[in-house]
Each structure stands twice: as structure tokens, then as C-alpha cells.
């Protein structure tokens, strides 16, 4: 039986691991494409990327994007931006560190190794010299971590929570990408861009030829049952993970049901039908549903079965939150209902 705190840490490990990889991939794409874009186009691409990643609020705190190095710093090395690669790497390490006793040693070592390899940790906003090397390193390390998770970790509840976290994060990103693509300021939907940002270009070419049309790509990224980053695949795997957690965690029932319901909406063509008339509104609604699912998973782990009332009887009024001694620096936990938010907003512990 897994501790609620461990379940939570592993769920967030899955989410941040996915986020580190996704943001690296997006940044790699942005860095490549911006080199041949000029002026306003480059700015529009940068802003679209920020919207795709759901980091508009975080960007507002920094100010408007003026240059490519600024975009790189914001997405790669800005520790104040919870959606940056470095923040995700730190969060993976911190979460794994807090469950160090129950994960394979190699998993911890790989995550710790990635953290240590960041040459600019502690120097926020200082972009490294070899951007591509760093991004490649991050993506390889993320793959190594995934490999250990898949091949070296017992299929216990802890493993299921990592998978659920990853699949939630991934589906939220894919839907966010489609939504942002539909509202591109340049007025066109770039089908290749959507495929590249989901590492699906090659798979699409093999199945559907090499002249992708935007509507076909949207359908593909929503429905393809055999594509690891399609929303349907993600929901299937998240549902399997939740089912694997057994009937003894009743608080997770709602999340299990919701995952099945969202999957059914895709499978029965309900989403596709709605997309035909109002694509943006449909995707927005789906995003909200996914956020609700993430919230239900979190709520299923955290409210430890009304024991809050047991604890409350011991806590005297005014006592909570008083500063303890120096060794007691409490780690900020995921922030309650904000856990339901999209990438970058979701329960940050940075």
C-alpha cells in the first residue's frame, strides 16, 4: 500500500519528466525555425510556442519576448518559470528524492545525473553555449529515465502513478498544441509543425503520405490508437494505470470513470463531430475536462480519507503555519486545486 505522499510525488515525477522532454523538444523546434524567420514572424512563432506550452502568465511576469536568446532563457534555464526545462529537471529530482527509498537506485542516479549535468544550474537566464547539446542531453536522459521506469521498476502502485502523471501531462500538452495551432496569429495551421512538436512526423508520413493536411493531422493526434502521443493513447494508458491501482482506493473512482468517459467521447466520434463546427471551443472544453481529470486524480490521493478531522483536533488555533526551527524548511506542496491546471500551472513545487 503506497503512502499518499509517495503517490503524489510519483505522479508529479511523471508529469515533470514529460514536461522536461516536451519543453526540450519544443525549444529545439523553436530554435531551429526562428533562425530562418525574421522580425514579427519570429516573435509570432515564439509567442505561439509559449501559448502551446500554456506559459502565458509566466511570460507576463518576464515581459514581452524581444529576442531569440530571451525565448531560450525563458524556456530552458529560467528557474522562476515553472515550465522551463531546468525547473522540470529540478522538480523530477526533488520528487524522486522524496521517494528515494522506494524507487530503483538507477532511477534516482539517472535523474540526479541529469540535474548535475546542467552546466548553468543556479544561473537563471544564462543560456548555455551549446543549446542543441543541452537539449539532446535532456531528451536522452529523459529517455534513459523512461527506460529504467519501464524495465527496472516493479509494476506496483508507484509505477502506475508515474504512468498516470506522464499520460495526463502528455494529453494536456497535445490538446494545448492543437488549440494554440487553431488560433495562430498568422492565420494558418502548420500541419508539419504539429507533427514535429509531437515527434509524430515520421509515423504520419508512413501511414498517410508526406503531404499532411491540417485537419487530418488534428484527427491523427486526437484519435490514432497506435501513436504514443495521441490523446486517445494517453487516455487509454492513464485509464489502465488508474485501474491497476485497484478497487481499494475508492477516492480514485471518479478519476477512473472520468478517464473512461473522455476516452469514449473520442472513440465514439463525439469530439470529431463537435470539432467540425467549433474546433477551438471543443478543444478548450476538452482541456478543461483533462484538467478536471488531473484534479480528480490529485484529490483521490490527497484527502486522506477524512483524517484531516482527526488531525484538526490536535492542532490548536493559530498554530498552523507558525515558523519552526531552521531545519524545518517545509517544502511547498502542490497547490490544492491549482493542480488541475494545464502545463506550467499545475501544482508547481518549484
Amino acid at each position, binding site marked *: 500500500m503506497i503512502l*499518499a505522499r509517495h503517490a503524489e510525488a510519483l505522479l508529479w515525477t511523471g508529469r515533470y519528466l514529460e514536461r522536461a522532454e516536451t519543453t526540450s523538444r519544443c525549444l529545439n523546434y523553436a530554435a531551429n525555425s526562428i533562425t530562418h524567420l525574421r522580425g514579427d514572424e519570429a516573435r509570432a512563432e515564439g509567442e505561439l510556442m509559449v501559448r502551446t506550452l500554456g506559459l502565458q502568465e509566466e511570460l507576463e511576469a518576464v515581459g514581452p519576448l524581444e529576442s531569440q536568446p530571451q525565448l531560450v532563457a525563458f524556456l530552458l534555464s529560467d528557474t522562476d518559470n515553472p515550465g522551463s526545462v531546468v525547473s522540470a529537471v529540478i522538480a523530477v529530482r526533488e520528487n524522486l528524492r522524496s521517494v528515494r527509498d522506494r524507487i530503483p537506485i538507477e532511477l534516482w542516479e539517472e535523474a540526479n545525473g541529469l540535474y548535475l549535468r546542467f552546466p548553468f544550474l543556479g544561473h537563471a537566464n544564462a543560456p548555455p553555449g551549446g543549446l542543441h547539446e543541452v537539449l539532446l542531453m535532456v531528451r536522452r536522459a529523459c529517455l534513459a529515465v523512461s527506460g529504467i521506469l519501464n524495465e527496472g521498476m516493479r509494476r506496483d502502485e508507484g509505477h502506475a502513478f508515474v504512468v498516470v502523471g506522464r499520460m495526463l501531462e502528455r494529453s494536456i500538452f497535445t490538446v494545448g498544441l492543437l488549440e494554440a495551432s487553431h488560433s495562430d496569429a498568422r492565420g494558418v495551421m502548420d500541419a508539419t509543425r504539429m507533427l514535429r512538436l509531437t515527434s509524430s512526423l515520421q509515423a504520419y508520413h508512413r501511414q498517410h503520405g508526406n503531404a499532411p493536411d491540417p485537419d487530418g493531422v488534428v484527427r491523427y493526434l486526437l484519435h490514432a490508437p497506435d501513436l504514443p502521443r495521441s490523446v486517445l493513447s494517453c487516455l487509454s494508458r492513464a485509464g489502465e494505470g488508474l485501474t491497476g491501482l485497484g478497487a481499494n482506493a475508492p477516492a480514485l473512482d471518479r478519476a477512473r470513470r472520468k478517464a473512461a468517459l473522455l476516452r469514449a467521447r473520442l472513440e465514439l466520434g463525439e469530439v470529431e463531430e463537435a470539432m467540425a463546427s467549433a474546433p477551438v471551443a471543443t478543444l478548450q472544453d476538452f482541456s478543461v475536462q483533462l484538467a478536471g481529470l488531473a484534479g480528480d486524480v490529485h484529490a483521490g490521493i490527497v484527502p486522506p480519507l477524512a483524517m484531516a478531522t482527526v488531525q484538526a483536533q490536535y492542532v490548536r488555533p493559530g*498554530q498552523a503555519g507558525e515558523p519552526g526551527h531552521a531545519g524545518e524548511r517545509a517544502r511547498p506542496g502542490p497547490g490544492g486545486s491549482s493542480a488541475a491546471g494545464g502545463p506550467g500551472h499545475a501544482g508547481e513545487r518549484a
Partner: protein
Amino acid sequence: MVDPVPGTGSGLLDRYRPVGAFDEAFDADGSVRPTYSRIVERFRELDAGEIRRLEKLVADEFRRQGITFTVYSEEEGTERIWPMDLFPRLIAAAEWDELARGLSQRVAAMNSFLADLYTGGGQAIADGVVPRWLVVSSGGFERNAVGVRVPHSAHCNIAGIDVVRDAGGRYRVLEDNLRNPSGISYVIENRAAMAKACSWLFYDHPVQPTEQYGQMLRSTLESMAPGGEGDPHIVVLTPGIFNSAYFEHAFLARSMGVELVEGRDLVVDGHSVYTRTIEGLVKVDVIYRRIDDDFLDPVAFRPGSTLGVPGLLSALRAGTVTVCNALGNGVVDDKGVYPYVPDLIRYYLGAEPIIDNVTTYMMWDPDQRSEALGRLDELVAKPVGESGGYGVLIGPHATEQQLDEARATIEAEPRGWIVQELVHLSTLPSVAEDRLEPRHLDLRPFVLTGERTQVFPGGLTRVAMRRGSLIVNSSQGGGSKDTWVLAPETP
């Protein structure tokens, strides 16, 4: 001073000179002691480049695994890679047997005293072995522990006893740690790193293994379950990832195969302790806590603390859970009580102490105080309530002003201080840039007590990294060495 030890190889040891303290590897005329003959030979085959390569191997290994400790500066903690010196400490079988017997004896007497004090009516106090005022004025004495029964009367399940060797090479106890002694994980990781980097060093030494600690600790804790239950639910309680010993807490939980919990993972209901799991509450039988007494239960102790478990003391009193180490052990860690431990051994066990204390002057005794303060420049003054080397004044290294201030402080609060003869800690060759130089060291062996007592072979050897320094604490720049207890040689 003695002549340089003649070298044969690269010269790492060519200029090695013992520094006036007992050197464990070389005797006073510069010849190698028999226990160390083969290891010295091996090191003579190395050169500085090879030493640097091995040091890097070890450091990379520690870094990769995140084997770190935290040094707290004024503002925040900094994570540092655990420092290990390559030249190991060797303890011959017969020497270890004697030391282990002495440690068992000492811990047995201190456990008897704790049981007597908290649940036995205080016979030792009544018989005048230890003054009552000294005990009740100790910061480590815990009134809440009075009447709380402990299985097998084993109040201290995990003890770390700091021993040193004096100028004559005799072991002496410098300090007792019966609350939350740390360091065992580093002992085991040091061995693992040495085995990886320098496996060839082990070939001609029958070294006792260290990886059994998890089993030893688990069986000790199992024997502490209330009512001797068959398969008790054991947890390790940590303050969390920001604690300097978090690595060790996770290590211990993993090597025992039990859960590592924080206070917020536990809840007390109906005088029992439970873990919060995703499937509900699961009862806990034994808590190996790595949190100090004061933070265990905000209801009974510090109301503002969020590290502990509200209501834990009520569960403890109800006897539904055992907390290891028990509450209130700090009274024996009090350096004011330390001078009485030899008498406690005589009182409870009817035997002479196998390991002596360091000669200690009790500042609350006017005669001892006036003698000690008169020659404070030769002695060491220690605050009774501190550990980790904090607040210690080493007379020969102090300025006149520091000595005067210390005298005034001690006169103002004699109960707060002891003064000891300066022990020139023994030395061993240690890597200092491109050669080996003598560095001072101590040893923290670990003694486990549940249904029975076991002494873990070896312990944590801490070494002062700076030339001439006597401060070995890792929080103050000390390093460590792998400690080899040699098995008896079969003919």
C-alpha cells in the same frame, strides 16, 4: 621527530613523519606496524597521478549517487559531496573484540540507567551514584518519558559511541550519542566506493563485510514491537529532504525494506499511529525516528513544529507503538553525566569499565574547577549540551582573550561545562595533495540493542583534513575513511 620512512616506489610515503601523536600505521621509530604492512606496501606502489585518478573515481561515484551531506551556513544549507580519504583504517581482530566488548558493556550500563531513571524509580540516584540535581537539570532529561515502558528495557536501540586513541594508543570514549547518531550509511557507502575504486587493496586482507547492517537494524527494530508481534509494521521517520542526513534516512529505509515517512504521513487516532496510504490508514508498530524529542509531538513538545505527529506521546503511553530510540535518552548524552558512566558500569554490571573515559573535570565541583581553569590553556572546554564539535574550546589553540572569556563563561554557569585533558588523537596516513601525511582521527562504532546487543564491525572513521587539526566533524571540514575490521587470520 623520527627519520623519514624509507620509500621504495613513487615516494607518496617517503617524507611521512608521525606528528607526536600515536600513529596507527607507523610506530615511533618509523617502522610499519604489522597490521598495516601490506596496505603500506600497496600504497608505496602508487604515484600521485594514480591517487588523483582514484580520488576522482570515488568522488564521481558519490556525486552520481547523490551521497552528500549538508553544511549549514548562516543563511542556507549547501550540499557537499561526501569526502572519503583513500587510505583505509585497519583494526586487527583481537583489538576489535576488546573494543566491541567495551562498547557493549558501556551501552548496557547506560540502558540500565535509562530504564532505572524513567521506569525503575531511580535506584542509582537514590544510591548516590549520580546526583539527582544533575539529572533533573539536564536538557536531555524528559519528564514525559517517565513511566513509558520500553520492550526489553532497551531505551537506546542505536548508539554511536565516539572513541579516540590517546598518545599511548589506548582507546577512550570521548562522547556518547544515544539520541540520533548518524553516519552508518556513509560507513557502508565508503566500503562500496572503496571496493569499486580499489578492489585490489582488499585481496590480501580478510575484511569483515558491512552490507548486513540493514538486516541487523531490522531485526533489532522487529524485536522492539509492542507485544512482540510477529511481522511488525516498521517505518523510518525523517524530517524530510532538507535535513542534512536525509540521504541516510532513505538509505536505512531502503536497506531494511521499510517505508520512509514524514510526520505528515502519520496520524494518531484512538491512541494508535497509522500511515496515510491511498487505500486508507495502516497501523504502525515501530517508528525508527530520526527527529529529535522536541519535534516528535507538537501537542506535548514544541507547539509550532510541523515535523512530528500530533498525539504521538499518547500512543506511546498507551503502549501501541514503540519509538526508537526512546524518549529522553539525551540525559546520557549530556556531557555533565558522561563523567559518571564508569561508575554506572560498576553499579549496574559489577565490573570495571573496559574502555576508559577521557580524564574530565566537572566544573560544578569548586576544586576541580579551580584546577582546570588554572591550566585551561592546556585543556579542552566543552559545553555539555552541544554535539558536532560546536562550542568546543581547545586550550592550546586559543588566544589569551578566548581563554579569559571561556573562564568567565564557565564561572558564570559551571553546570554548562566540562573540561577535559587534551587527547592528541591518533593519526593515519591520509592523502594531502601529492603525498600521504598524518591526519588525526576518531571512530564512531554503532551498537544495536533490542532483544540482544550487537556491535556492528567497524564504524565511521572521521579524519581531520587539515594538517594539525583535531576537529574531525564533517560539519566542520572533516573527512572519513573506510574502516576495515580484519577477521581472525586462519593459519
